[in-house]
């Protein structure tokens, strides 16, 4: 039974169509991340769900309820905003209480919920402070607390971590994940940060230009990108995408003339000989040591090496393109720019896309 579904959503702002016939549904308890570059329509979609703006056509369902025409307050959802949007003139307690005060709950129940949220988010000592007196992380917790106390069916997050520094962001990520596991609400979470998406989501919808490019679990999205956009978008450093031409015998020839063995790849539709492909090779799947029966072996010149401590990124010349390979620092300690090395790629890690449509084949 889908808990949140968007059906044929069209959203126009004047002449500009932001969303054009979008369909999407997630189950109860899912943690859906809407991921995409800025301007892809993900925040618009979230606002439509929240009821902060109205759809041009289409239908939004939460459970069995058609909420398309409902007021935001009647949709039984709660939201955490990018800027937190805490009420600056109210204390933390006041912020938590304000949203409930309109709900006609008995006072004891309100107090109980506030205490519960304060406890859960460890903001008890801050209850009488005003938002201006809180640090960024504390404000973030209060903002989440304000959403939690409402016991909403669906929790919405709009890039909630983008205003935090890297360390806090990691911490909060874990905490939100933990909260989701404990309380198991349905979550719709908008971000442009793929790490957040990969770490927290149970489902990711990757959006681009108002369309959903792929919808699936983090692993699906990472391992089996549905098209070139997703392949290029997910993963850092991003997947190497190299043009190739299909030859007979389950092989293809790459631009530098080396052969690619596609026997380890499960095709949806096998391409005919002569078809143009794009081969996707993730940097971390390469190996510098000789691999038994690899899909391909490339002999390339090192342009430069970037060591990040835990990893080393080798940037290799591939014609006028680059191929990025991830290796360990030990493997690369003796290498320097200008050296020629051989890298191999395993058969079962290939990603193949139709060069024309960009779709996975």
């Amino acid at each position, binding site marked *: 039974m889908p808990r949140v579904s968007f059906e044929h959503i069209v959203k126009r702002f004047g002449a500009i169509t932001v969303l054009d016939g979008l369909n999407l549904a997630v189950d109860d308890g899912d943690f859906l991340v809407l991921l995409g570059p800025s301007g892809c329509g993900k925040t618009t979609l979230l*606002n439509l769900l*929240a*009821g*902060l703006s109205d759809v041009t056509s289409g239908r939004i369902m939460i459970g069995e309820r058609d909420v398309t025409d409902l*007021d*935001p*307050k*009647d949709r039984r*959802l*709660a*939201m955490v*905003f*990018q*800027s*937190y*949007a805490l*009420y*600056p*003139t*109210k204390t933390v307690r006041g912020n938590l209480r*304000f*949203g409930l*005060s*309109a*709900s006609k709950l008995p006072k004891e129940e309100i107090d109980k919920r506030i205490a519960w949220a304060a406890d859960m988010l460890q903001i008890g000592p801050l209850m009488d402070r005003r938002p*201006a*007196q809180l640090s960024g992380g504390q404000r973030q917790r209060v903002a989440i607390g*304000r959403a939690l106390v*409402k016991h909403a069916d669906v929790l919405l997050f709009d890039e909630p971590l983008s205003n935090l520094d890297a360390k806090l962001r990691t911490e909060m990520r874990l905490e939100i994940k933990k909260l989701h596991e404990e309380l198991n609400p349905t979550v719709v979470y908008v971000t442009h940060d793929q790490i957040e998406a990969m770490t927290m989501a149970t489902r990711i919808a990757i959006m681009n230009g108002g369309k959903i490019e792929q919808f699936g679990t983090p692993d699906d999205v990472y391992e089996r990108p549905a098209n070139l956009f997703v392949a290029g978008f997910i993963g850092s450093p991003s997947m190497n995408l190299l043009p190739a031409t299909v030859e007979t015998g389950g092989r293809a020839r790459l631009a530098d003339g080396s052969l690619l063995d596609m026997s380890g790849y499960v095709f949806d539709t096998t391409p005919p000989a002569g078809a143009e492909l794009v081969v996707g090779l993730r940097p971390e799947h390469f190996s510098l040591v000789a691999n038994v029966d690899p899909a391909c072996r490339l002999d390339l010149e090192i342009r430069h090496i970037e060591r990040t401590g835990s990893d080393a990124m080798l940037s290799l010349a591939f014609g006028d393109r680059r191929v990025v390979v991830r290796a360990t620092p030990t493997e690369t300690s003796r290498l320097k720019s200008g050296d020629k090395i051989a890298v191999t790629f395993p058969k079962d890690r290939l990603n193949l896309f139709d060069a024309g449509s960009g779709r996975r084949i």
Partner: protein
Amino acid sequence: MGIRWSRLTPQLALTPAVAITAIAFIGSIGWTILLSLTSSRRLPDYTIDWTNPFRQYARLFADIGWRISLSNLIVLAIGSALAIVFGFILAAMIERERRGEDFFRTVFLYPLAISLIVTGVAWRWIFNPALGLESFFHSLGMTWVSFNWLADGRTAMYAIILASVWQSSGFYMALMLAGLKAINVEIWSAARLDGVPLWRVYLEIIIPMMKFTFLTCAILLSLGVIKAYDIIVAMTNGGPGQSTWLPAYFTINAMSAKGNLAFASAAATLMLAITLVIFLPLVLLTVWQQRMRKGVAG
């Protein structure tokens, strides 16, 4: 050691401002206070009768016109405060409704560009019982309507308030609009999701958030009220009776009609005292607020 011009030039550049402050403001205030202790009539006479230096003030406190002026000042202040309320309501509506924002803003703001003398002419004409609004309503058969406010000491002040509200609401609207637009849109979204009735959002969230804007408006308003003179001249010239006298009018009247410089100076000195009594707290509050803000931001 040579002269450090880099140090000196800014100080030199400040000379005109310092001179103006020292002579035209501080010196002149002292001068007027000194005059208020004398018995100068049309021309200044700087001898002070030390047996009773405050006689002008004593006279002022006994003067009916001065008492009327003071109570009118309060009435005008309270009445004109409607301009802030009205300005806020208009700004809030424009801000919510966006449609026609440019049009409404322009219409509400244009009276600001018009001099109070013209404002007075226009409103006196509208309040004219024989040819103005009253006769319009009477011609519609609503003969019970009375707009002859300027003719009655009890209502003349309200006519002046109406005209000054008309004149200044737009300005407060512009300030409020700026304040409202500075509010994070996500606050509004949060409040919408919280399902709190709009009036409560304004009352509990938005207005408290804009207290600095309100404070600014209050300061500007009280300044305008204390200085109100032109509109009185243009609308009632103080009448009927002394019913629309204000301290500024009183002071100038004491100088011109009564030919009593010392008395006028005493009235002006008390105007300054009133200003200080009203403003020092407001100013300190503002400074304190700013400190608070900076402290938080820093």
